[in-house]
Protein backbone atom coordinates (compact mmCIF):
# COMPACT_ATOMS: atom_id res chain seq x y z
CA UNK A 1 0.00 0.00 0.00
CA UNK A 2 2.76 2.42 0.98
CA UNK A 3 4.58 1.48 -2.14
CA UNK A 4 1.55 2.30 -4.27
CA UNK A 5 1.10 5.66 -2.55
CA UNK A 6 4.77 6.41 -3.01
CA UNK A 7 4.67 5.58 -6.71
CA UNK A 8 1.49 7.61 -7.07
CA UNK A 9 3.33 10.61 -5.64
CA UNK A 10 6.35 10.05 -7.88
CA UNK A 11 4.09 9.68 -10.88
CA UNK A 12 2.18 12.85 -10.15
CA UNK A 13 5.35 14.88 -9.83
CA UNK A 14 6.77 13.51 -13.11
CA UNK A 15 3.39 14.05 -14.78
CA UNK A 16 3.27 17.64 -13.53
CA UNK A 17 6.40 18.50 -15.51
CA UNK A 18 5.00 16.83 -18.64
CA UNK A 19 1.78 18.76 -18.12
CA UNK A 20 3.60 22.10 -17.96
CA UNK A 21 5.26 21.45 -21.31
CA UNK A 22 2.13 19.91 -22.85
CA UNK A 23 0.11 23.05 -22.05
CA UNK A 24 2.33 25.09 -24.36
CA UNK A 25 1.91 22.64 -27.26
CA UNK A 26 -1.83 22.59 -26.85
CA UNK A 27 -2.27 26.36 -26.46
CA UNK A 28 -0.29 27.14 -29.58
CA UNK A 29 -2.18 24.45 -31.47
CA UNK A 30 -5.40 26.05 -30.24
CA UNK A 31 -4.69 29.41 -31.88
CA UNK A 32 -2.54 28.44 -34.87
CA UNK A 33 -3.40 24.78 -35.59
CA UNK A 34 0.18 23.59 -35.79
CA UNK A 35 2.64 21.82 -33.49
CA UNK A 36 5.41 24.11 -32.34
CA UNK A 37 8.30 21.64 -32.40
CA UNK A 38 10.65 24.30 -31.04
CA UNK A 39 8.69 24.26 -27.78
CA UNK A 40 10.85 21.51 -26.24
CA UNK A 41 13.94 23.63 -26.89
CA UNK A 42 12.41 26.63 -25.18
CA UNK A 43 12.15 24.26 -22.21
CA UNK A 44 15.90 23.59 -22.53
CA UNK A 45 16.68 27.31 -22.71
CA UNK A 46 14.67 27.78 -19.49
CA UNK A 47 16.89 25.26 -17.73
CA UNK A 48 20.05 26.99 -19.01
CA UNK A 49 18.84 30.46 -18.00
CA UNK A 50 18.24 29.10 -14.50
CA UNK A 51 21.65 27.40 -14.60
CA UNK A 52 23.55 30.62 -15.32
CA UNK A 53 21.56 32.68 -12.85
CA UNK A 54 21.55 29.98 -10.18
CA UNK A 55 25.35 29.76 -10.11
CA UNK A 56 25.48 33.31 -8.84
CA UNK A 57 22.78 32.96 -6.24
CA UNK A 58 22.97 31.54 -2.72
CA UNK A 59 22.40 27.77 -2.73
CA UNK A 60 19.69 25.92 -0.80
CA UNK A 61 17.39 28.89 -0.70
CA UNK A 62 13.69 29.22 -1.47
CA UNK A 63 14.27 32.82 -2.56
CA UNK A 64 16.89 31.73 -5.11
CA UNK A 65 14.51 29.09 -6.42
CA UNK A 66 11.71 31.60 -6.90
CA UNK A 67 14.11 34.01 -8.54
CA UNK A 68 15.47 31.48 -11.09
CA UNK A 69 11.91 30.32 -11.81
CA UNK A 70 10.72 33.85 -12.52
CA UNK A 71 13.83 34.66 -14.56
CA UNK A 72 13.52 31.50 -16.67
CA UNK A 73 9.81 32.10 -17.23
CA UNK A 74 10.38 35.71 -18.30
CA UNK A 75 13.32 34.79 -20.53
CA UNK A 76 11.38 31.99 -22.19
CA UNK A 77 8.30 34.18 -22.66
CA UNK A 78 10.50 36.66 -24.52
CA UNK A 79 12.14 33.89 -26.55
CA UNK A 80 8.75 32.40 -27.43
CA UNK A 81 7.36 35.71 -28.70
CA UNK A 82 10.58 36.35 -30.60
CA UNK A 83 10.35 32.95 -32.33
CA UNK A 84 6.72 33.62 -33.21
CA UNK A 85 7.51 37.08 -34.53
CA UNK A 86 10.53 36.11 -36.63
CA UNK A 87 9.76 32.56 -37.76
CA UNK A 88 6.01 31.95 -37.71
CA UNK A 89 4.31 35.30 -38.30
CA UNK A 90 5.75 35.77 -41.83
CA UNK A 91 4.13 32.40 -42.66
CA UNK A 92 0.66 33.31 -41.37
CA UNK A 93 -1.03 32.74 -44.72
CA UNK A 94 1.22 29.84 -45.78
CA UNK A 95 0.09 26.19 -45.62
CA UNK A 96 0.44 24.53 -42.20
CA UNK A 97 3.09 22.16 -43.55
CA UNK A 98 5.45 25.07 -44.22
CA UNK A 99 5.01 26.33 -40.68
CA UNK A 100 5.59 22.83 -39.33
CA UNK A 101 8.86 22.48 -41.23
CA UNK A 102 9.91 25.93 -40.03
CA UNK A 103 9.20 24.82 -36.45
CA UNK A 104 11.54 21.86 -36.91
CA UNK A 105 14.12 24.28 -38.29
CA UNK A 106 13.82 26.57 -35.28
CA UNK A 107 14.12 23.55 -33.02
CA UNK A 108 17.36 22.42 -34.69
CA UNK A 109 18.67 25.98 -34.64
CA UNK A 110 18.17 26.22 -30.87
CA UNK A 111 19.63 22.76 -30.21
CA UNK A 112 22.74 23.16 -32.29
CA UNK A 113 23.46 26.78 -31.48
CA UNK A 114 23.13 25.55 -27.89
CA UNK A 115 25.82 22.95 -28.59
CA UNK A 116 27.96 25.52 -30.38
CA UNK A 117 27.82 28.20 -27.69
CA UNK A 118 27.22 26.20 -24.53
CA UNK A 119 29.05 22.99 -25.43
CA UNK A 120 27.60 19.53 -25.87
CA UNK A 121 28.80 18.24 -22.50
CA UNK A 122 26.23 17.94 -19.75
CA UNK A 123 26.50 20.45 -16.96
CA UNK A 124 25.54 20.05 -13.35
CA UNK A 125 22.63 22.19 -12.32
CA UNK A 126 23.45 24.26 -9.20
CA UNK A 127 21.67 23.24 -5.98
CA UNK A 128 19.52 26.34 -5.69
CA UNK A 129 16.69 24.50 -4.00
CA UNK A 130 17.09 23.13 -0.46
CA UNK A 131 16.86 19.34 -0.41
CA UNK A 132 14.62 18.11 2.35
CA UNK A 133 12.13 15.37 2.81
CA UNK A 134 9.02 14.73 4.75
CA UNK A 135 7.92 11.27 5.85
CA UNK A 136 4.21 10.79 6.10
CA UNK A 137 3.31 7.33 7.38
CA UNK A 138 6.03 5.58 5.42
CA UNK A 139 5.55 7.67 2.26
CA UNK A 140 8.46 9.96 1.51
CA UNK A 141 7.52 13.35 0.13
CA UNK A 142 10.71 14.97 -1.08
CA UNK A 143 11.13 18.71 -1.16
CA UNK A 144 11.58 18.48 -4.92
CA UNK A 145 8.25 16.76 -5.37
CA UNK A 146 6.58 19.32 -3.16
CA UNK A 147 8.10 22.07 -5.32
CA UNK A 148 7.10 20.47 -8.62
CA UNK A 149 3.55 19.74 -7.54
CA UNK A 150 3.11 23.10 -5.79
CA UNK A 151 4.50 25.20 -8.65
CA UNK A 152 2.60 23.25 -11.30
CA UNK A 153 -0.69 23.47 -9.41
CA UNK A 154 -0.22 27.22 -8.91
CA UNK A 155 0.65 27.81 -12.57
CA UNK A 156 -2.20 25.69 -13.91
CA UNK A 157 -4.64 27.53 -11.64
CA UNK A 158 -3.25 30.86 -12.79
CA UNK A 159 -3.52 29.79 -16.42
CA UNK A 160 -7.11 28.71 -15.85
CA UNK A 161 -7.86 32.15 -14.36
CA UNK A 162 -6.26 33.93 -17.30
CA UNK A 163 -8.09 31.86 -19.89
CA UNK A 164 -11.53 31.76 -18.30
CA UNK A 165 -11.74 35.02 -16.32
CA UNK A 166 -9.92 37.67 -18.31
CA UNK A 167 -10.68 39.49 -21.51
CA UNK A 168 -7.43 38.37 -23.16
CA UNK A 169 -8.38 34.80 -22.22
CA UNK A 170 -11.76 35.19 -23.89
CA UNK A 171 -9.93 36.61 -26.91
CA UNK A 172 -7.65 33.54 -26.99
CA UNK A 173 -10.69 31.27 -27.01
CA UNK A 174 -12.30 33.43 -29.69
CA UNK A 175 -9.21 33.29 -31.92
CA UNK A 176 -9.03 29.56 -31.39
CA UNK A 177 -12.63 29.11 -32.55
CA UNK A 178 -12.66 31.51 -35.49
CA UNK A 179 -9.77 33.90 -36.26
CA UNK A 180 -11.73 35.86 -38.88
CA UNK A 181 -14.63 36.50 -36.53
CA UNK A 182 -12.12 37.62 -33.90
CA UNK A 183 -10.62 40.09 -36.38
CA UNK A 184 -14.06 41.44 -37.20
CA UNK A 185 -14.82 42.35 -33.59
CA UNK A 186 -11.58 44.29 -33.47
CA UNK A 187 -9.28 41.78 -31.80
CA UNK A 188 -5.66 42.16 -32.82
CA UNK A 189 -5.14 38.49 -33.64
CA UNK A 190 -1.36 38.82 -33.94
CA UNK A 191 -1.17 40.27 -30.45
CA UNK A 192 -3.29 37.43 -29.07
CA UNK A 193 -1.06 34.86 -30.78
CA UNK A 194 2.07 36.54 -29.40
CA UNK A 195 0.51 36.49 -25.94
CA UNK A 196 -0.29 32.79 -26.31
CA UNK A 197 3.32 32.04 -27.22
CA UNK A 198 4.54 34.08 -24.24
CA UNK A 199 2.26 32.20 -21.88
CA UNK A 200 3.08 28.73 -23.24
CA UNK A 201 6.82 29.46 -23.33
CA UNK A 202 6.80 30.76 -19.75
CA UNK A 203 5.24 27.46 -18.66
CA UNK A 204 7.92 25.56 -20.60
CA UNK A 205 10.57 27.68 -18.87
CA UNK A 206 9.15 26.78 -15.47
CA UNK A 207 9.08 23.14 -16.59
CA UNK A 208 12.74 23.37 -17.60
CA UNK A 209 13.76 24.66 -14.17
CA UNK A 210 11.72 22.04 -12.30
CA UNK A 211 13.10 19.29 -14.50
CA UNK A 212 16.68 20.49 -13.96
CA UNK A 213 16.17 20.63 -10.19
CA UNK A 214 15.01 17.00 -10.27
CA UNK A 215 17.47 15.69 -12.86
CA UNK A 216 20.41 18.08 -12.35
CA UNK A 217 22.37 17.27 -15.49
CA UNK A 218 21.49 19.59 -18.35
CA UNK A 219 22.63 19.80 -21.96
CA UNK A 220 21.35 21.46 -25.16
CA UNK A 221 19.52 18.31 -26.30
CA UNK A 222 17.79 17.72 -22.96
CA UNK A 223 14.44 18.90 -24.35
CA UNK A 224 14.09 16.04 -26.84
CA UNK A 225 12.64 13.25 -24.71
CA UNK A 226 10.54 15.31 -22.26
CA UNK A 227 9.33 17.33 -25.26
CA UNK A 228 8.28 14.20 -27.12
CA UNK A 229 6.55 12.82 -24.04
CA UNK A 230 4.75 16.12 -23.42
CA UNK A 231 3.65 16.14 -27.05
CA UNK A 232 2.19 12.67 -26.48
CA UNK A 233 0.40 14.02 -23.38
CA UNK A 234 -1.12 16.88 -25.37
CA UNK A 235 -2.39 14.45 -28.02
CA UNK A 236 -3.55 11.99 -25.38
CA UNK A 237 -5.66 14.64 -23.64
CA UNK A 238 -6.96 16.05 -26.91
CA UNK A 239 -4.78 18.58 -28.71
CA UNK A 240 -6.06 22.14 -28.26
CA UNK A 241 -7.79 21.21 -25.01
CA UNK A 242 -6.17 22.77 -21.93
CA UNK A 243 -7.52 20.51 -19.15
CA UNK A 244 -6.76 17.64 -21.55
CA UNK A 245 -3.06 18.53 -21.62
CA UNK A 246 -2.92 18.53 -17.82
CA UNK A 247 -4.77 15.20 -17.66
CA UNK A 248 -2.54 13.70 -20.36
CA UNK A 249 0.53 14.75 -18.37
CA UNK A 250 -0.74 13.10 -15.20
CA UNK A 251 -1.68 9.88 -16.97
CA UNK A 252 1.65 9.54 -18.72
CA UNK A 253 3.59 10.39 -15.56
CA UNK A 254 1.69 7.77 -13.58
CA UNK A 255 1.95 5.08 -16.24
CA UNK A 256 5.68 5.64 -16.65
CA UNK A 257 6.31 5.58 -12.92
CA UNK A 258 4.23 2.47 -12.26
CA UNK A 259 5.67 0.53 -15.18
CA UNK A 260 9.15 1.82 -14.31
CA UNK A 261 8.73 0.61 -10.75
CA UNK A 262 7.52 -2.83 -11.76
CA UNK A 263 9.42 -5.85 -13.07
CA UNK A 264 8.80 -4.69 -16.64
CA UNK A 265 10.63 -1.42 -16.00
CA UNK A 266 12.49 -1.44 -19.31
CA UNK A 267 9.13 -1.37 -21.08
CA UNK A 268 8.06 1.95 -19.65
CA UNK A 269 8.44 4.00 -22.85
CA UNK A 270 6.88 1.23 -24.93
CA UNK A 271 3.88 1.12 -22.60
CA UNK A 272 3.58 4.92 -22.68
CA UNK A 273 3.54 5.08 -26.47
CA UNK A 274 1.42 1.93 -26.72
CA UNK A 275 -1.14 3.65 -24.53
CA UNK A 276 -1.16 6.57 -26.92
CA UNK A 277 -1.85 4.27 -29.87
CA UNK A 278 -4.60 2.52 -27.95
CA UNK A 279 -6.35 5.74 -26.91
CA UNK A 280 -6.10 7.20 -30.40
CA UNK A 281 -7.60 4.01 -31.86
CA UNK A 282 -10.72 4.38 -29.74
CA UNK A 283 -10.81 8.14 -29.25
CA UNK A 284 -9.02 9.75 -32.20
CA UNK A 285 -9.64 13.25 -30.82
CA UNK A 286 -7.97 12.38 -27.50
CA UNK A 287 -9.55 11.89 -24.10
CA UNK A 288 -11.16 15.33 -23.72
CA UNK A 289 -10.99 16.48 -27.33
CA UNK A 290 -14.15 16.89 -29.33
CA UNK A 291 -14.15 15.30 -32.76
CA UNK A 292 -14.29 18.13 -35.28
CA UNK A 293 -15.90 17.86 -38.67
CA UNK A 294 -13.27 18.18 -41.38
CA UNK A 295 -13.23 21.72 -42.74
CA UNK A 296 -13.95 22.00 -46.43
Amino acid at each position, binding site marked *: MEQILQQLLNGISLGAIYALIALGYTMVYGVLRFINFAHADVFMVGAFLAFFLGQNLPANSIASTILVLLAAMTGCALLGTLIERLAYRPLRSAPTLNVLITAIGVSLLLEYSGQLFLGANPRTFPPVYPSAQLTLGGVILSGNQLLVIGVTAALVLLLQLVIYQTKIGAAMRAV*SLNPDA*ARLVGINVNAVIAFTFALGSALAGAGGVLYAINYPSIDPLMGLMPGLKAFVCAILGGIGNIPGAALGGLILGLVETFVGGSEASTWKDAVAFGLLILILLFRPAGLLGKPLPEKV
Partner: protein
Amino acid sequence: MLTVENLAVAYGAINALQDVSFAIPRGGIVTLLGSNGAGKTTTLRTISGLVKPRGGKIFFDGEDITRLPPHRIVQAGLCHVPEGRMVFTNLTVADNLRLGTWRQPDTARTAANRDYVFSIFPRLQERLHQLAGTLSGGEQQMLAIGRALMGNPSFLMLDEPSLGIAPKLVQTIFEKIIEINQRRGITILLVEQNASLALDISSHAYVLESGHILTHGPSTALRADPRLRAAYLGE
Protein backbone atom coordinates in the same frame (compact mmCIF):
# COMPACT_ATOMS: atom_id res chain seq x y z
CA MET B 1 -18.82 58.27 -45.65
CA LEU B 2 -17.56 55.08 -47.29
CA THR B 3 -16.07 55.41 -50.74
CA VAL B 4 -14.84 52.46 -52.76
CA GLU B 5 -12.84 53.27 -55.89
CA ASN B 6 -12.03 50.81 -58.67
CA LEU B 7 -11.74 47.89 -56.26
CA ALA B 8 -10.22 44.73 -57.74
CA VAL B 9 -9.87 41.46 -55.85
CA ALA B 10 -8.53 38.15 -57.08
CA TYR B 11 -8.31 34.71 -55.49
CA GLY B 12 -5.30 33.26 -57.26
CA ALA B 13 -6.02 33.53 -60.96
CA ILE B 14 -9.74 34.05 -60.49
CA ASN B 15 -10.98 37.62 -60.49
CA ALA B 16 -13.62 38.02 -57.82
CA LEU B 17 -14.14 41.77 -58.18
CA GLN B 18 -13.28 44.12 -61.02
CA ASP B 19 -13.50 47.88 -61.02
CA VAL B 20 -16.10 48.09 -58.27
CA SER B 21 -16.84 51.66 -57.22
CA PHE B 22 -19.53 53.07 -54.98
CA ALA B 23 -20.06 55.78 -52.42
CA ILE B 24 -22.29 55.53 -49.39
CA PRO B 25 -23.34 58.78 -47.75
CA ARG B 26 -23.72 59.12 -44.00
CA GLY B 27 -27.01 58.21 -42.41
CA GLY B 28 -28.76 55.94 -44.88
CA ILE B 29 -29.34 52.27 -45.53
CA VAL B 30 -27.80 51.09 -48.78
CA THR B 31 -28.15 47.57 -50.10
CA LEU B 32 -25.90 45.50 -52.27
CA LEU B 33 -27.79 42.95 -54.35
CA GLY B 34 -26.57 40.15 -56.54
CA SER B 35 -26.87 36.45 -57.11
CA ASN B 36 -24.69 33.81 -55.46
CA GLY B 37 -21.04 34.27 -56.32
CA ALA B 38 -21.51 37.81 -57.62
CA GLY B 39 -18.93 39.09 -55.13
CA LYS B 40 -21.10 40.59 -52.38
CA THR B 41 -19.37 38.87 -49.48
CA THR B 42 -15.96 39.46 -51.05
CA THR B 43 -16.76 43.17 -51.24
CA LEU B 44 -17.58 43.29 -47.52
CA ARG B 45 -14.57 41.16 -46.54
CA THR B 46 -12.30 43.47 -48.53
CA ILE B 47 -13.72 46.60 -46.94
CA SER B 48 -13.26 45.16 -43.45
CA GLY B 49 -9.65 44.19 -44.21
CA LEU B 50 -9.95 40.38 -44.18
CA VAL B 51 -9.11 40.21 -47.89
CA LYS B 52 -6.40 42.40 -49.40
CA PRO B 53 -7.40 43.93 -52.75
CA ARG B 54 -5.26 43.65 -55.85
CA GLY B 55 -6.12 47.22 -56.80
CA GLY B 56 -8.31 50.16 -55.93
CA LYS B 57 -8.84 52.23 -52.82
CA ILE B 58 -11.25 52.31 -49.89
CA PHE B 59 -11.86 55.52 -47.95
CA PHE B 60 -13.73 55.70 -44.68
CA ASP B 61 -14.50 59.15 -43.27
CA GLY B 62 -11.92 60.54 -45.65
CA GLU B 63 -9.19 58.21 -44.38
CA ASP B 64 -7.57 55.63 -46.67
CA ILE B 65 -8.23 52.27 -44.98
CA THR B 66 -7.27 50.05 -47.92
CA ARG B 67 -4.22 48.52 -46.25
CA LEU B 68 -5.22 48.73 -42.60
CA PRO B 69 -5.48 45.50 -40.56
CA PRO B 70 -9.07 44.53 -39.61
CA HIS B 71 -8.80 45.57 -35.96
CA ARG B 72 -7.80 49.11 -36.94
CA ILE B 73 -10.78 49.34 -39.28
CA VAL B 74 -13.11 48.27 -36.46
CA GLN B 75 -11.46 50.87 -34.27
CA ALA B 76 -12.23 53.52 -36.89
CA GLY B 77 -15.93 52.71 -36.42
CA LEU B 78 -16.62 50.34 -39.30
CA CYS B 79 -18.04 47.00 -38.13
CA HIS B 80 -18.84 43.96 -40.24
CA VAL B 81 -21.43 41.40 -39.12
CA PRO B 82 -20.34 38.41 -41.20
CA GLU B 83 -22.38 35.92 -43.14
CA GLY B 84 -23.31 32.92 -41.00
CA ARG B 85 -23.13 35.16 -37.90
CA MET B 86 -19.83 33.74 -36.64
CA VAL B 87 -20.63 34.19 -32.98
CA PHE B 88 -18.17 32.56 -30.60
CA THR B 89 -20.19 29.44 -29.84
CA ASN B 90 -17.69 28.32 -27.18
CA LEU B 91 -18.16 31.52 -25.16
CA THR B 92 -21.12 32.86 -23.19
CA VAL B 93 -23.36 35.59 -24.55
CA ALA B 94 -21.77 37.95 -22.01
CA ASP B 95 -18.24 37.12 -23.21
CA ASN B 96 -19.26 37.55 -26.84
CA LEU B 97 -20.55 41.03 -26.05
CA ARG B 98 -17.48 41.79 -23.97
CA LEU B 99 -15.20 40.93 -26.88
CA GLY B 100 -17.16 43.40 -28.99
CA THR B 101 -15.70 46.13 -26.78
CA TRP B 102 -12.11 45.03 -27.43
CA ARG B 103 -11.31 48.38 -29.06
CA GLN B 104 -13.57 50.47 -26.85
CA PRO B 105 -11.73 51.82 -23.80
CA ASP B 106 -14.56 54.13 -22.68
CA THR B 107 -16.39 52.19 -19.93
CA ALA B 108 -19.29 54.65 -19.64
CA ARG B 109 -19.95 54.33 -23.35
CA THR B 110 -19.62 50.55 -23.15
CA ALA B 111 -22.26 50.45 -20.39
CA ALA B 112 -24.55 52.66 -22.49
CA ASN B 113 -24.04 50.46 -25.57
CA ARG B 114 -24.78 47.38 -23.50
CA ASP B 115 -28.02 48.91 -22.22
CA TYR B 116 -28.97 49.79 -25.77
CA VAL B 117 -28.27 46.27 -27.04
CA PHE B 118 -30.41 44.80 -24.25
CA SER B 119 -33.19 47.31 -25.00
CA ILE B 120 -33.46 46.20 -28.63
CA PHE B 121 -32.67 42.52 -28.02
CA PRO B 122 -34.01 41.70 -24.52
CA ARG B 123 -33.54 38.01 -25.38
CA LEU B 124 -29.78 38.46 -25.08
CA GLN B 125 -30.08 39.69 -21.52
CA GLU B 126 -32.21 36.67 -20.61
CA ARG B 127 -29.56 34.35 -22.02
CA LEU B 128 -26.53 36.29 -20.85
CA HIS B 129 -24.77 33.36 -19.19
CA GLN B 130 -25.64 30.72 -21.76
CA LEU B 131 -23.07 29.55 -24.27
CA ALA B 132 -23.68 31.27 -27.60
CA GLY B 133 -23.72 27.83 -29.26
CA THR B 134 -26.97 26.99 -27.46
CA LEU B 135 -28.86 29.95 -28.98
CA SER B 136 -31.22 29.63 -31.93
CA GLY B 137 -30.17 30.99 -35.33
CA GLY B 138 -32.19 34.15 -34.85
CA GLU B 139 -30.78 34.73 -31.40
CA GLN B 140 -27.26 34.22 -32.72
CA GLN B 141 -27.97 36.85 -35.37
CA MET B 142 -29.13 39.22 -32.61
CA LEU B 143 -25.94 38.45 -30.72
CA ALA B 144 -23.79 39.09 -33.80
CA ILE B 145 -25.45 42.47 -34.33
CA GLY B 146 -25.29 43.25 -30.60
CA ARG B 147 -21.61 42.32 -30.49
CA ALA B 148 -20.92 44.71 -33.36
CA LEU B 149 -22.89 47.50 -31.65
CA MET B 150 -20.74 47.09 -28.53
CA GLY B 151 -17.80 48.39 -30.56
CA ASN B 152 -19.64 51.70 -30.97
CA PRO B 153 -19.64 51.71 -34.78
CA SER B 154 -20.71 54.60 -36.97
CA PHE B 155 -21.05 52.26 -39.94
CA LEU B 156 -22.38 48.71 -39.96
CA MET B 157 -22.07 46.15 -42.74
CA LEU B 158 -24.56 43.29 -42.46
CA ASP B 159 -24.02 40.18 -44.56
CA GLU B 160 -27.19 38.13 -45.08
CA PRO B 161 -28.86 38.79 -41.73
CA SER B 162 -31.91 36.74 -42.77
CA LEU B 163 -29.97 33.62 -43.73
CA GLY B 164 -31.23 30.48 -42.01
CA ILE B 165 -33.57 32.31 -39.65
CA ALA B 166 -37.23 31.62 -38.87
CA PRO B 167 -39.44 33.99 -40.96
CA LYS B 168 -40.99 35.48 -37.85
CA LEU B 169 -37.60 36.50 -36.49
CA VAL B 170 -36.49 37.92 -39.86
CA GLN B 171 -39.23 40.52 -39.48
CA THR B 172 -38.02 41.43 -35.98
CA ILE B 173 -34.41 41.67 -37.05
CA PHE B 174 -35.19 43.93 -39.99
CA GLU B 175 -37.26 46.19 -37.75
CA LYS B 176 -34.27 46.45 -35.44
CA ILE B 177 -31.96 47.24 -38.34
CA ILE B 178 -34.20 50.17 -39.27
CA GLU B 179 -34.27 51.25 -35.65
CA ILE B 180 -30.48 51.12 -35.32
CA ASN B 181 -30.21 53.25 -38.42
CA GLN B 182 -32.81 55.83 -37.41
CA ARG B 183 -32.33 56.07 -33.65
CA ARG B 184 -28.57 55.67 -33.46
CA GLY B 185 -27.72 57.31 -36.75
CA ILE B 186 -25.59 54.32 -37.81
CA THR B 187 -25.11 54.09 -41.56
CA ILE B 188 -25.85 50.60 -42.88
CA LEU B 189 -24.63 48.62 -45.86
CA LEU B 190 -26.85 45.58 -46.24
CA VAL B 191 -26.12 42.49 -48.30
CA GLU B 192 -29.22 40.36 -48.63
CA GLN B 193 -30.50 37.44 -50.70
CA ASN B 194 -34.04 38.53 -49.99
CA ALA B 195 -33.95 41.38 -52.52
CA SER B 196 -37.53 42.43 -51.96
CA LEU B 197 -36.98 42.92 -48.24
CA ALA B 198 -33.66 44.70 -48.82
CA LEU B 199 -35.19 47.12 -51.33
CA ASP B 200 -38.04 47.83 -48.89
CA ILE B 201 -35.77 49.14 -46.16
CA SER B 202 -33.00 50.75 -48.21
CA SER B 203 -32.92 54.11 -49.92
CA HIS B 204 -30.33 53.19 -52.52
CA ALA B 205 -29.17 49.94 -54.06
CA TYR B 206 -26.22 48.62 -56.04
CA VAL B 207 -26.42 45.46 -58.09
CA LEU B 208 -23.33 43.29 -58.44
CA GLU B 209 -22.99 40.76 -61.20
CA SER B 210 -19.91 38.59 -61.83
CA GLY B 211 -17.70 40.89 -59.84
CA HIS B 212 -18.70 44.26 -61.22
CA ILE B 213 -21.44 46.82 -60.58
CA LEU B 214 -24.23 46.21 -63.10
CA THR B 215 -26.42 49.10 -62.12
CA HIS B 216 -27.39 51.26 -59.18
CA GLY B 217 -30.02 53.81 -58.22
CA PRO B 218 -32.73 54.63 -55.71
CA SER B 219 -34.32 51.45 -54.38
CA THR B 220 -37.78 52.45 -55.63
CA ALA B 221 -36.46 52.91 -59.15
CA LEU B 222 -34.63 49.56 -59.12
CA ARG B 223 -37.75 47.86 -57.85
CA ALA B 224 -39.52 49.06 -61.00
CA ASP B 225 -36.71 47.98 -63.35
CA PRO B 226 -38.06 45.04 -65.38
CA ARG B 227 -34.63 43.37 -65.73
CA LEU B 228 -34.14 43.31 -61.99
CA ARG B 229 -37.67 42.20 -61.33
CA ALA B 230 -37.00 39.16 -63.45
CA ALA B 231 -33.56 38.40 -62.09
CA TYR B 232 -33.87 39.09 -58.37
CA LEU B 233 -37.48 39.53 -57.43
CA GLY B 234 -38.75 36.47 -59.25
CA GLU B 235 -41.54 38.37 -60.96
